């Protein structure tokens, strides 16, 4: 980045725009339709660069736990480019079935679901199901509330379940959280969440900078000084 004052201001304002947008998106998520309506979902904003990095580290660690989770590495690389991450939680899906016997979980009645043994919280398991699916799917309205407004505001977004699961692992969400999804947002000219190259976890802007520009610079300096 250039040292020009105006460019530095632009960078600051860009980040501020993402922070403001994150709060607008939170409002959209909270007011989206909900079954039951009360105390179902919460939305948490992570907009500190260091906090986002912490989240990415956990996402990366989780990728080795399950063969199906190899794409978590790519997710982490994308999340590092996010200006803010919104984590949407489902507070009632784990402990408080909806008592409408909808059979989405396949247990016929909520009483049977209550008696069902949950999966243990161990590596390779993201959510300790069986969850009340009727409760868990409630957060899709919150997530789409974010997506819908982000589209209107012209904010780039990416939806990641890996980051939601990682946030649960980190213990930064309410204790009763049974299910969580994350939406990362970015205010940049090119969305970092779509149209990405293969092997993105290995070859991305950071590794390119590190392995090409930053390697080259000391040599250039020592040769031409």
């Amino acid at each position, binding site marked *: 980045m250039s040292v020009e004052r105006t460019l530095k201001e632009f960078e600051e304002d860009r980040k501020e725009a993402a922070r403001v947008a994150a709060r607008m998106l939170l409002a959209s998520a909270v007011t*989206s*339709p909900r*079954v039951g309506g009360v105390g179902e979902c919460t939305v948490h904003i992570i907009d500190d660069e260091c906090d986002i990095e912490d989240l990415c580290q956990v996402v990366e660690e989780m990728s080795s736990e*399950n*063969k*199906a*989770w190899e794409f978590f590495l790519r997710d982490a690389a994308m999340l590092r480019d996010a200006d803010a991450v919104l984590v949407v939680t489902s507070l009632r899906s784990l402990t408080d079935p909806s008592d*409408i*016997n*909808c*059979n*989405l*979980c*396949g*247990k*016929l009645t909520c009483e049977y679901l209550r008696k*069902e043994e*949950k*999966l243990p919280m161990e590596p*390779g*398991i*993201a*959510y*300790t*199901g*069986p*969850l009340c*699916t*009727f409760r*868990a*799917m*409630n*957060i*899709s*309205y919150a*997530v*789409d*509330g974010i*997506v*819908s407004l982000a589209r209107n505001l012209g904010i780039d977004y990416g*939806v990641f*379940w890996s980051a939601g*699961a990682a946030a649960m692992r980190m213990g930064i969400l309410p204790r009763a959280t049974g*299910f969580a*999804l994350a939406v990362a947002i970015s205010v940049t000219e090119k969305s970092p969440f779509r149209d990405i190259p293969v092997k993105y976890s290995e070859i991305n802007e950071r590794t390119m900078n590190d392995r090409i520009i930053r390697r080259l610079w000391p040599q250039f300096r020592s040769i031409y000084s």
Partner: protein
Amino acid sequence: MAIREMDDMVQSGLDRAVEMMTLAAKTSFKFGSRNTIKVISITGSEIEQLAEYCFSLGDMAPLAARDGRFAADLVKEPSAVLLIGDKRQSLFNYNCGACGYRTCAELNKAEMVESLTSNGPSCVFRNINLHMAADAAAAMAWRLGLHCRVFSTLAFAAKALEVMPGVDMIVSIAVSAAKTDPFFDRHKFWTQEVWDQTFKKEFPTFTRGFIGAVEDEDW
């Protein structure tokens, strides 16, 4: 110059709006780029059929009965119900555990449990995709100025009556172009007497000074 009547324009606007909602549902964000939802819309007598079924559940499902009575009123003004459905098995291979099975393969192998409301066990992410489509449709309806509400009761009725064959779970979005918002006002279905009775039964401590006192003989 032709003159078009208001009713005609409202009806054709509503028809167009339902198409736009379907479009929004189809193109909404989906996990894993798995877009397998099915959408149909119903109006008039088909909605009445769902309403009748819901209402017939009566005391067995008071919420459904209430929504049934409501839907019977809904069709008196220009209205439509969008039904969005999907199959239950996982297509994602996320192995996330939310459904209670360790892997998607285990979930897909599990025996299907059929019921009137929906068939389970179902993949949570497939449900999420389905309901994000529902929210996109609702958001579109909101933007187009329609009255809108998402109903699971009418959707369960549609599943029970097999209005939408070949799907395991359904969600419904009801829209209306009535003069005033017919949703979120169910007070007209309550008489003062019923209200008082129900309130007293549900919240007995609200009017009682000392909770330990027994004031009502049949309590």
